[in-house]
């Protein structure tokens, strides 16, 4: 009994470290290939457009709703302390520092991360990646590097967009029960925001985007043969990328607070 449970935990640990090792190797390969010419600029532009454009409606709606709901939910608590005038500032800080980046990244992981995983896995199963290689093309560069870069570049833009719509949602939420002019609202918001709120929040989204791109690509590019590999690659990409978003978020908070002291 003891023996078998020990070997099971051994093999789980072994698998875990093997996985960590091969993702690290994959990431290292990304950095090697990203610098070497030729650069696949056309494909990078195309992917960036697709990645940004595809997730835009979903992220716009979610951003707006989060701003609206957060405002409506926070009002009673603040009102209890007679601090209703703090509402715009409080909501703005929570959206920009935390909720905007994390929610957007999670949606992005669900939409783009799983998309990359499924696409590359199906290309692998149907030998499209092999076909590319015999057509004078480095598939890692053409497929992986472009997708990781576009995820890294587009997520921060999407987060800024989601933040902006979140603030608009919040403005409407405030005006459901009050009467604050847009000018007053936004001047309150911008007064309450500091450099330290905005910049670290944007920087961490670069890492979110990179992690989502790398994990989706890794799962797809190394998927097992067979059609069930495609679904599995999409699924594990989302789970693993979402987890990474929280882990990076935690690390980012620690680093930001260290830097502020």
């Amino acid at each position: 009994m003891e023996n078998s449970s020990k070997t099971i935990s051994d093999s789980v640990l072994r698998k875990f470290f093997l996985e960590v090792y091969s993702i690290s190797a994959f990431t290292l390969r990304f950095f090697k290939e990203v610098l070497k010419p030729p650069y696949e600029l056309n494909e990078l532009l195309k992917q960036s457009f697709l990645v940004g454009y595809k997730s835009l409606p979903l992220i716009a709606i979610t951003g707006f709703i989060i701003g609206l709901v957060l405002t409506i939910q926070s009002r009673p608590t603040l009102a209890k302390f007679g601090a209703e005038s703090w509402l715009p500032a409080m909501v703005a800080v929570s959206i920009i520092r935390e909720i905007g980046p994390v929610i957007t990244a999670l949606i992005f992981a669900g939409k783009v991360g799983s998309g990359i995983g499924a696409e590359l896995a199906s290309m692998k199963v149907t030998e499209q990646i092999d076909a590319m290689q015999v057509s004078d093309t480095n598939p890692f560069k053409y497929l992986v590097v472009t997708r990781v870069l576009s995820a890294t570049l587009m997520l921060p833009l999407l987060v800024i967009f989601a933040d902006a719509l979140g603030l608009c949602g919040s403005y409407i939420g405030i005006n459901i029960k009050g009467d604050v002019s847009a000018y007053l609202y936004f001047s309150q918001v911008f007064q309450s925001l500091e450099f330290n709120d905005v910049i670290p929040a944007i920087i961490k989204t670069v890492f979110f985007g990179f992690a989502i791109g790398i994990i989706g690509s890794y799962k797809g590019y190394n998927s097992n043969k067979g059609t069930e590999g495609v679904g599995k690659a999409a699924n594990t990409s989302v789970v693993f990328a979402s987890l990474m978003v929280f882990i990076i978020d935690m690390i980012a908070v620690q680093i930001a607070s260290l830097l502020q002291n």
Partner: protein
Amino acid sequence: MTDSTTLIKKGDDNKQNDNIVVEMIHLKKSFENNHVLQDINLVVNKGENVVILGQSGTGKSVLIKCIVGLVEIDDGKLILFGQDISLLKNTELVQIYRKIGFLFQSAALYDSMSVRENLEFPLKRQQRNLKKEEMDLLVKEALHDVGLEKAIDLSPSELSGGMRKRVGLARTLILKPEIMLYDEPTTGLDPITSKEISNLILEVQKKYNTSSIIITHDIECAKLIANRVIVIKDGVCAAEGSYADLEKSTDPWIRSFFE
């Protein structure tokens, strides 16, 4: 006297070497503990159609993937167009691989591109400054050769299995290969379409004067196109000969392929 005979002999030797486009000598390939190719020796002559038979999972696909460098060989020699590829520099290797076309089992059309873009892809990759009109002409010619001009603006998902194979073939032919490798070109197709594809392979051989290796389970296809048949078993070439020879073989295992 002696001088002249050796001269003649030398000339003969050279001629023979020129004639061989693919040669494998004691080729080996394993995936961890799975010893797929154990000792493969084979020769493909210029203009010849060699059919490879063997059960599923014996490493037929691995064998032809070695030829284009999709699978690295562990041991042995692979000689393409008379050159040992282990001695070549990367740039020379690229030049050699460019002369080899590969039709994948699933046709491997790029799902995200139309038929036209699928055919343009290898062209753009090889000759980066090709003019649009020239490219258009080549695409149309290649599609014409496989009888599918009308499909030029369709996407792969709109094609039937047979059409996909044809487009895959056109995409390979557009680069005018000297060696064609076909991985189960008729598997999964109905008998009539299979026959059409087999005939197409013959036409391609005539028009482009290619040498081909064809992996197939389709005995009709083998009968039609094979100049020579090689049977692979347990990682070695177990039998070799013309279709008629092997059909008459007394070995029940070999005969089982022909029933």
